[in-house]
């Protein structure tokens, strides 16, 4: 018999939310936490007066991504709650800011992560909250086994 490589072990149902696909989400949320916060930091420290609303929004987005990353990393009841709240805010944020940045371009002269539904970031900011919420939903404590 040919020596078949063993397939990867399947993930137990009660595993932490920060493992499996959750760990991939952890990495992606981490990337966005870093890029949004760093962008806001540079914008606020160098030319804050040009577009205060957009830059404060960048900083807020960075904090939301940071909270989601921490929630996934912490896990348990509290981590789940943090991740759930931040993913929801993220979804609402990307939809509202995305719509406003198209409807009222004057108020958003400089880009944030969420401008034009995250087109500057390959629309990942638009897709990410859906994946995050789906992941949390799939791994809710009462999920039918």
């Amino acid at each position, binding site marked *: 018999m040919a020596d078949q490589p063993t397939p*990867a072990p399947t*993930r137990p149902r009660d595993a932490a939310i920060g493992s499996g696909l959750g*760990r*991939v989400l952890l990495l992606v949320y981490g*990337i966005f936490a*870093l890029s949004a916060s760093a962008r806001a930091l540079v914008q606020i420290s160098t030319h804050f007066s040009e577009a205060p609303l957009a830059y404060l929004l960048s900083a807020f987005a960075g904090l939301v991504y940071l909270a989601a990353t921490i929630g996934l990393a912490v896990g348990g009841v509290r981590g789940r709650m943090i991740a759930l709240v931040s993913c929801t805010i993220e979804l609402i944020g990307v939809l509202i800011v995305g719509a406003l940045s198209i409807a009222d371009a004057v108020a958003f002269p400089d880009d944030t992560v969420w401008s034009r539904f995250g087109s500057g970031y390959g629309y990942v900011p638009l897709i990410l909250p859906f994946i995050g919420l789906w992941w949390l939903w799939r791994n809710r404590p009462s999920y039918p086994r």
Partner: protein
Amino acid sequence: MNGPLSTATIVVALVLGVWYLVRTAMNRAPSNTDLWSMLALSALVAILVVVAVVGLFTGDRPADWTTFVGYLITTVAFAPVAVYLARLEPTRWGTLILGVASLVLPVLVLRLQQIAEVTGG
């Protein structure tokens, strides 16, 4: 910043990224070869960053050099973090972590090139 070294890094990262995605689709956990390949890519990126840092002291400094340095630190730390996370995750998702990281690296290198192009006195 725009030399053959950057191009080589981008090409290697893209090839590895596609390879990891295929491995994820085949439901394979990261093998030792996968992890070592990513470390090899990290080494390539580290050389690129060292060259860029030397360039900061000898050549034209980018106008936005604080952002440039921020990107350099992110870039050099990125692949090792991915390897660390992938080692924690011995499932297909560990391979996907390597894949995502390999596909984000070219973006970081391209951003570095963009920032480096704008030099100003």
